[in-house]
């Protein structure tokens, strides 16, 4: 307000000091001094918060800053101690299993034989079909078909919770059971134990025709929807087959029998399949059984019909008075919600492995936490890769798990189908802690824990052929591994025990080093005279780890680039390499990026293959989708930011028809659903359609052995083939005789630059280095795809004039352009030719005959200086193979075999 405002002038004069009444002043001062001296409520708290007692005399801000620093240091210390004290990985010897340091690893049991699963083979080794821990976790029960025998036996391993390298003792020979001709399905889970020591097992099986051996084992026969019986007297070996209809007619289910073996050795029949049929609970068809005993009076059964004859069913078998006498048992069928994976099959097939798998598991009941009225079901969907764990129950006994809360989803994870669970419950300080032990969840060779909150933590890793897991009552875990290779004599089932280590008794100090150091990568030095180098990967049959090497074209200067490696990829500027390696953790491949002489930086521990080349910022990773039942190679393409580590899915599902541009900034791929050719900018992830869709049109191969579209060397054009699928035909371009069209499109505009009809079998193409010509090889269709070993034609396509002319005919193996783009080479099985575009052909004088291509497709490449042509002659299944190098000027041939007994793979010139 301005000074001339009269009100302001009046009111501004109100601040004159005025002395109060003396008695008031005196009384107030007296009271204030008393207040000042007396400790009042909250004063102490205030002092505490100011930490006067801690650092008296130090200014408040400094004091608080010091206290904050101290707290941060304390937190960092706790975090460090927690990390190193609890989560450290401990190795069981060099390149052995690794486990968390709060566990102790021991080999509890080992036996020759095949692991849990079905693989009857010639039965020359024991065949372990299922495992279960006994009461208290002290004993291990197993169903095994001994070597040379045809009927299973129940065996026990005593002291599995503390002993090492134990032996199994037989309990019961199932062949002695009075059951008419039968066979058992080995891949069932026909074994489960109850808390009171009862062991439930399934015996019996199919009613075989008269004359069949009583001691016969059976197994499904691939996807033939039938059953094979072994050692049938009418045939030798794998001689007898029974269709599902026949098995149903013979009352196949009727001879599946559920027994209980009591601790005193007595046994009792609990249920026969015919009971289920008679009570119309189930059709009399072939089926699988699984059992899970959740209490002394209760067994859960899961029955899977064959041929899609009905919904999958869950049964609860109850001993009403829990007296151990199962004659008065009650069977209740439990209908499952249709929303459960595989609860109902519309077009089911026998080969249920291709669709999915169930696993039943009983939860331990502890300290009043009764879980006997429910059972866990781990469900794998192999089509989607989904893995889910449900808790199923029928508490109101209405015959279904359809009511609210009766089928509860506990856990879900993508791309983890096939994981195996074992519920674990531990009482600690009077509190029940529950979690799930899982095999193969995060990786196929890891054992993990899923907490009640759904958090996943890996406990042990680098198991070879991890099969399943078990959980003991004291927190101990068992990992069961086995060798699936039937042809080897050293097959073994191994049960590893992982015991929790009490706090403060860690094994860190006595353990071997945690992980292997990842060796540095040194690029090879230049060779005298500028001799170019070859780069290749080696697989040795001497069980040595695969490694990447370089060697000069003259056979000198062999150097190892990276060991324990799979797929080395150079950056576009040539200064870095990216690769996957299991050097750090055996059998587990992580992705690294390294510069010359530098320490490799781990990019990701997730599974994936680096797509070449890569630019400095992005790494494109191909992550295969697990379990494709049709065997096709499908995966996701993921952009990995090398600075932030952030990953973005670029293409959710792609087969092998994709290609990165030479500067690694753009991706062209074939959209599998719409069958269109798509272009993606890796920086912005903008996507546009380059071609398609057209009804029936498919985009096919680029070069022999390397399908997909092909970028021109300057990255401005893309070449690809398209073909029409004949009506009703399955897409198999290698075996169908029909025409292809060669397309070249401009990337910027998407406009076609060239379109030519190519008649003949699977074509392949190669760009000249100047991007002005294409070589197209069209094979005679009678030959194996991917290996250009058959008669065909070599076409030279001139992009400027659009002309196409045949430059060679006959048995054509390999094609490659000279770096100048002014010549190309092609190989027949015995001869190497060099051709200039004007048509002059020169035959190089010597060459080793090219062997048959049985394993990997051959390669031909011209050295960057144009002096040498290197090629791989194709390989047989037996090493050694060799790399042939021809001096173009002199015609001199050199065969390089720098390492003994080795396959040479992924050969290229080092640039």
């Amino acid at each position: 307000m301005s000074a001339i405002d009269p009100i302001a002038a009046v009111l501004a004069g109100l601040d004159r000091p005025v002395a109060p009444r003396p008695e008031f002043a005196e009384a107030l001062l007296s009271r204030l001094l008393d207040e000042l001296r007396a400790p009042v409520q909250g004063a102490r708290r205030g002092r505490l918060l100011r930490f006067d007692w801690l650092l008296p005399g130090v200014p408040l801000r400094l004091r608080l800053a010091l206290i904050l620093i101290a707290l941060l240091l304390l937190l960092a210390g706790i975090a460090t101690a927690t990390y190193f004290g609890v989560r450290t990985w401990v190795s069981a010897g060099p390149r052995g299993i690794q486990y968390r340091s709060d566990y102790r690893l021991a080999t509890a049991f080992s036996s020759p034989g095949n692991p849990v699963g079905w693989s009857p083979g010639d039965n020359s080794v024991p065949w372990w079909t299922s495992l279960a821990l006994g009461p208290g976790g002290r004993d291990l029960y197993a169903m095994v078909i001994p070597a040379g025998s045809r009927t299973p036996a129940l065996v026990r391993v005593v002291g599995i919770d503390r002993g090492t390298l134990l032996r199994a003792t037989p309990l019961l020979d199932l062949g002695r059971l009075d059951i008419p001709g039968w066979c058992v399905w080995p891949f069932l889970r026909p074994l489960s134990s109850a808390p009171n020591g009862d062991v439930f097992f399934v015996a019996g099986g199919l009613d075989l025709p008269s004359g069949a051996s009583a001691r016969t084992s059976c197994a499904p026969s691939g996807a033939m929807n039938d059953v094979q019986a072994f050692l049938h007297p009418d045939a030798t070996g794998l001689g007898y087959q029974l269709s599902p209809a026949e098995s149903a007619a013979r009352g196949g289910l009727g001879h599946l029998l559920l027994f209980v073996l009591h601790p005193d050795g007595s046994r009792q029949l609990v249920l026969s399949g015919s009971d289920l049929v008679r009570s119309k609970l189930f059709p009399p068809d072939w089926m699988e059984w699984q059992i899970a005993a959740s209490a002394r009076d209760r067994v859960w059964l899961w029955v899977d019909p064959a041929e899609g004859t009905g919904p999958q069913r869950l049964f609860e078998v109850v001993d009403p008075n829990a007296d151990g006498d199962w004659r008065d048992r009650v069977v209740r069928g439990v209908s499952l919600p249709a929303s459960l994976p595989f609860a109902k099959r519309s077009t089911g097939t026998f080969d249920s492995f291709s669709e999915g798998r169930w696993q039943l598991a009983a939860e331990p009941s502890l300290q009043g936490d009764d879980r006997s009225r429910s059972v866990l079901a781990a469900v794998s969907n192999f089509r989607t890769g989904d893995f889910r764990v449900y808790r199923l129950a029928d508490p109101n006994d209405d015959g279904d798990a359809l009511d609210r809360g009766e089928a509860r989803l506990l856990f879900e994870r993508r791309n983890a189908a096939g994981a195996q669970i074992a519920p674990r419950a531990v009482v600690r300080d009077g509190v029940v802690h529950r979690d799930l032990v899982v095999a193969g969840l995060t990786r196929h060779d890891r054992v993990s824990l899923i907490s009640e909150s759904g958090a996943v933590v890996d406990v042990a890793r680098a198991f070879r052929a991890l099969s399943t897991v078990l959980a003991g009552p004291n927190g101990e875990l068992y990992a069961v591994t086995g060798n699936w290779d039937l042809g080897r004599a050293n097959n073994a089932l191994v049960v590893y025990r992982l015991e929790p280590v009490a706090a403060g008794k860690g094994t860190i100090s006595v353990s071997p080093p945690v992980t292997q150091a990842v060796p540095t990568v040194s690029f090879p030095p230049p060779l005298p005279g500028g001799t170019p180098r070859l780069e290749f990967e080696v697989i040795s049959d001497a069980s040595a780890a695969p490694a990447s090497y370089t060697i000069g074209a003259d056979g000198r200067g062999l150097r190892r680039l990276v060991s324990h490696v799979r797929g080395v990829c150079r950056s576009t500027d040539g200064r870095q390499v990216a690769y996957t390696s299991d050097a750090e953790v055996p059998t587990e491949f992580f992705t690294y990026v390294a510069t010359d002489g530098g320490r490799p930086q781990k990019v990701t521990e997730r599974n994936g293959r680096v797509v070449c080349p890569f630019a400095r910022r992005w790494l494109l990773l191909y992550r295969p989708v697990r379990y494709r039942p049709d065997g096709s190679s499908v995966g996701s393409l993921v952009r990995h930011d090398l600075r932030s580590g952030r990953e973005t899915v670029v293409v959710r599902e792609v087969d092998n028809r994709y290609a990165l541009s030479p500067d690694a900034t753009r991706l062209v791929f074939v959209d599998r659903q719409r069958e269109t050719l798509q272009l993606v900018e890796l920086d912005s992830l903008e996507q546009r359609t380059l071609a398609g869709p057209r009804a029936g049109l498919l985009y096919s191969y680029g070069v022999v052995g390397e399908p997909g579209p092909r970028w021109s060397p300057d990255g401005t054009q893309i070449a690809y083939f398209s073909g029409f699928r004949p009506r009703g035909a399955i897409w198999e371009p290698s075996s169908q005789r029909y025409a292809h069209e060669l397309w070249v499109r401009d990337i910027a505009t998407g406009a076609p630059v060239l379109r030519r009809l190519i008649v003949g079998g699977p074509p392949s193409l190669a760009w000249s280095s100047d991007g002005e010509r294409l070589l197209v090889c069209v094979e005679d269709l009678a030959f194996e795809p991917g290996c250009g070993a058959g008669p065909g034609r070599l076409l030279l396509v001139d992009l400027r004039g659009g002309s196409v002319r045949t430059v060679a005919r006959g048995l054509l193996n390999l094609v490659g352009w000279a770096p100048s783009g002014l010549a190309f080479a092609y190989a027949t099985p015995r001869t190497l030719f060099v051709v200039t575009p004007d048509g002059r052909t020169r035959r190089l004088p010597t060459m080793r005959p090219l062997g048959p291509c049985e394993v990997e497709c051959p390669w031909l490449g011209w050295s960057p200086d144009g002096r040498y042509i290197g090629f791989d002659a194709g390989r047989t299944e037996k090493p050694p193979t060799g790399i042939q190098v021809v001096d173009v000027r002199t015609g001199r041939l050199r065969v390089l075999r720098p390492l003994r007994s080795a396959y040479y793979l992924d050969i290229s010139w080092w640039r």
Partner: protein
Amino acid sequence: MFVIPFMELAVREAEALGLDPDAFRAFFEEALPKVYGYLLHRCGGAVPVAEDLTQETFLAAVAELKKGRRPEAPIPWVYGIARHKLLDHYRREERAGRELALDPGAELEDTRFDEGGEAARERAVAALAAVPASQRAALVLRYSDGFSVPEVAEALGRTVAAVNSLLERGRDGFRRAYVEALP
């Protein structure tokens, strides 16, 4: 000159008002007339009200000192406390609905404000006591304490427009009351 910040802070803190009784007594003797006068004039010359507010102000000051507060400028600090106590008092009055009936038709154009001296101050105090509490608070903060209108609005928890309205009406009321008090 090279100064270590923490040391400077420590020196200043040593000079600040603390819990020492002698220092407090000196502070009290200096601050009491100022605080009492400040409050007495702003609450319409009501001695009991001014004494109550003075006592509340100093008790709050002591409580703050016991919590560890060490004001570097004790007098402005205690003025701030007094202002808050005064505003609380105005709010209480406003809630109690204490209003003074003024003659809305009084002619105010030739109001003489040019008087000086004690008589004028007493009339101003009386006139201030005659306006409603909310208007009085706005007038005091605006003209006596020199707050800007937005600062008054923030102190009173009202909008700027509302404060302008309060000031307008407060000025009218103050003029009328002041004129009425003229001899």
